[in-house]
């Protein structure tokens, strides 16, 4: 199997090439498309690094949802008629930037290639604690058990980001729904695609969430897929974005962090301290928390892409 190193090198070169295109492309649209392709290729690199969970997340969130965000942004900028700040950068700055970037890249490569041996690792500790959680996927164990505090805070970060996005709305538009993603009128082909794809995507997303306890997957990856399906439905105008003051929306957005928060508090009662789990009963609680995290991620990501409430949304 001597083919693999060649494929690896080829993949690396392709990734670098697309990354260069992303920086060098003249138009925002070209650059963003390049970035989406880069994200998808990067997931292949992650697979080669034995990181399927990360590959799924990178493809779904890093490439997919970020791509929609940036494409929508580019489209809204263009249609708003705003001029893009246009003066081209002079050559001296380019040369300085190129030299600096080269030095940084070389320095980083050197440091990374010569990290101390033997490599320090937490895999043995992670393995040792796995039995107590009842999980088979060590990454889920890290996210929801060993370092659950980080994950809960990260969900709060998402709520904050959404509040920040909403806060740039005009005062008069507060409470309304965000403007539609993409301005297309309902279109036959897009409707057909959505009606076929969305149910499938939802099933796959739920499956990825469910198996995440013991195999690659989990709430983040499944939630990102569900989020993508809702975004497709909104883009095809088969459903509209909800009003931001809708009570169900607010509840869905905090369900994940709130359940995590309450479970963390309850840890004092049923485990040995905050954010701990009762021995032997950890897995059901973890899945319960993850289910609400799934809901929150599936609702938060599309609302982040949809943007602040808008007067023109008509509701």
């Amino acid at each position, binding site marked *: 199997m001597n083919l693999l190193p060649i494929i*690896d*090198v080829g993949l*690396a070169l392709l*990734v*670098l090439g697309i990354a260069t295109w992303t*920086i060098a492309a003249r138009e*925002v649209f070209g*650059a963003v498309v390049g*970035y989406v392709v880069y994200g998808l290729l990067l997931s292949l*690199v992650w697979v*080669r*690094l*034995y*990181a399927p969970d*990360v590959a799924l*997340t990178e493809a779904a969130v890093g490439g997919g949802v970020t791509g929609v*965000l*940036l494409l929508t*942004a580019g489209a809204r*900028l263009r249609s*708003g008629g*705003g*001029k*893009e700040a*246009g*003066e081209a*950068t002079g050559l001296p*700055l380019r040369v*300085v*930037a190129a030299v*600096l*970037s*080269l030095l*940084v*890249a*070389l320095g*980083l*490569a050197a440091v*990374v*290639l010569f*990290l101390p041996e033997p*490599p*320090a*690792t*937490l*895999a*043995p500790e*992670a393995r*040792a604690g796995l039995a107590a959680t009842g999980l088979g996927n*060590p*990454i889920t164990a*890290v*996210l929801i058990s060993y370092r659950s505090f*980080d994950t809960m805070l*990260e969900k709060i970060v*998402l709520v904050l980001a959404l509040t920040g*996005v909403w806060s*740039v709305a005009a005062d008069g538009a507060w409470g309304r729904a965000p403007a539609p993603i993409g301005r297309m009128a309902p279109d036959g082909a897009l409707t057909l695609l959505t009606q076929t794809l969305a149910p499938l995507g939802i099933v796959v997303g739920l499956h990825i969430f469910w198996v995440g306890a013991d195999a690659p997957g989990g709430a983040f990856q499944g939630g990102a897929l569900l989020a993508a399906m809702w975004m497709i439905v909104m883009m095809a105008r088969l459903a509209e974005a909800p009003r931001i003051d809708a009570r169900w929306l607010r509840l869905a957005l905090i369900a994940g962090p709130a359940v995590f928060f309450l479970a963390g508090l309850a840890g004092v009662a049923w485990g040995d301290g905050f954010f701990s789990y009762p021995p032997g009963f950890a897995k059901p609680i973890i899945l319960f928390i993850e289910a609400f995290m799934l809901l929150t*991620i599936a609702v938060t*990501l599309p609302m982040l892409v949809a943007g602040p409430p808008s007067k023109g949304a008509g509701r």
Partner: protein
Amino acid sequence: MTPAVLAGLVGAAVVGLGLYGLIVDPQPLRKLLAFNLIGSGVFLIFGIVARRGAAAGFEFDPVPQAMVITGIVVAFAASALAVALILRLSETSGGVSLDPAVWTKPDDKGEKGDGQ
């Protein structure tokens, strides 16, 4: 050349590329793209740290991988916030420029009516 070594080189190169794009391109949306590129390079560095940590029957160290997953989601949230600011700035001012000369003159006469 193991995949880990290759990924490390790619990560370093992508960080450099992103840094160049960040410095050189004046448009905020392109700067944001460059940021995302740098971020993905940093995550790759985490990735090779994880791969080097193969032990105890795992092919990888799960802790850095979990950190990358958290980081990807946080980076997306940051991009969303930046996009919202960029779009709103473009709407209210007709052009997105971060040129400090436009917005902050050191001896500003206070004519902008700061009523707070």
